[in-house]
């Protein structure tokens, strides 16, 4: 049945005509949004998001992050993934060169599937707050190296 016919019927019956929603403009918006989102996925590399509370420094480095263990250091805590490991204040005041709590929680590097024999998944990315001190970063890096993580990367925000 055509709409003009149904409209006539409704008018005769004393009913208000139904308003048809124009979806074309909504479809335009959604299509643009979809293309934008799909483009952001085509950049490649591992999708890495900054840990909450960490203000990463800006850099012109353009190396894409790879899949790795993530250790974050903000103003209050050192975290392995999203799990809090140690307090920054305690670590900073400790005379030790390493962080025992982090060393205990570090997983043992495992062989990389499909890679040549002896290749271990020993990559780690440090997400450090821009205001942390080098002495703290050094302790974290030393602990990671003692735990078998030799392949260290520093995460930064890419400058436009």
């Amino acid at each position, binding site marked *: 049945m055509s709409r003009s016919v149904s409209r006539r019927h409704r008018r005769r019956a004393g009913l208000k005509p139904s308003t048809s929603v124009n979806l074309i403009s909504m479809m335009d918006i959604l299509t643009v949004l979809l293309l934008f989102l799909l483009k952001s996925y085509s950049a490649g590399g591992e999708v890495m998001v900054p840990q909450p509370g960490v203000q990463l420094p800006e850099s012109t480095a353009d190396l894409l992050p790879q899949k790795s263990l993530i250790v974050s250091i903000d103003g209050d805590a050192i975290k392995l993934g999203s799990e809090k490991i140690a307090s920054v204040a305690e670590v900073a005041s400790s005379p030790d060169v390493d962080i025992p709590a982090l060393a205990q929680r570090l997983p043992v590097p495992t062989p990389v599937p499909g890679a040549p024999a002896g290749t271990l998944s020993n990559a780690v990315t440090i997400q450090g707050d821009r205001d942390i001190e080098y002495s703290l970063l050094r302790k974290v890096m030393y602990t990671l190296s003692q735990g078998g993580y030799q392949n260290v990367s*520093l995460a930064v925000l890419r400058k436009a």
Partner: protein
Amino acid sequence: MAGRHEKRGRGHKVETPDLELMPMLNVFISIIPMLLLSAAFVQLSVIDTGLPAPAAAAVADAKPDAAPPVTIGLHADRVVVESGPFGRREIPRRPGTALKDDPARGQVEALLRAIAGRQEKKPEVQIVPEGHSHYEEIVELMDLARAAGLPNAALADAAPGAV
């Protein structure tokens, strides 16, 4: 596809195609929230770096045909750049100012460019920060070295009394 008949002129009926957009809209409404939830709007990149080793060890371990490494000491009041053939140069810093806003930044960059420009083989850069140096300033120095044409920058520890 449904059609709509409209009368135009003298009894001519023109059929206006009426697209069924609802299935497409349903797909869009399902996909877009999923993509939005998993999208990373902040572009992160990484700087590969080695573990801090004594700067003196890096000089000793350098290959005989490699250019001698450039050592940059980052202090609260000065930046010290030391390179074999170019000697040692101290650049004073404005106290309490971040390196990115400090006039010393431009001088360090110019010096690194001069070092990179005068050597065929690009030397490695060893950054030796003080314990209280901010992480942001270390990254800034790495950027300066990269911009000057010295892409291999690593962290290093100072030998007592050096740099």
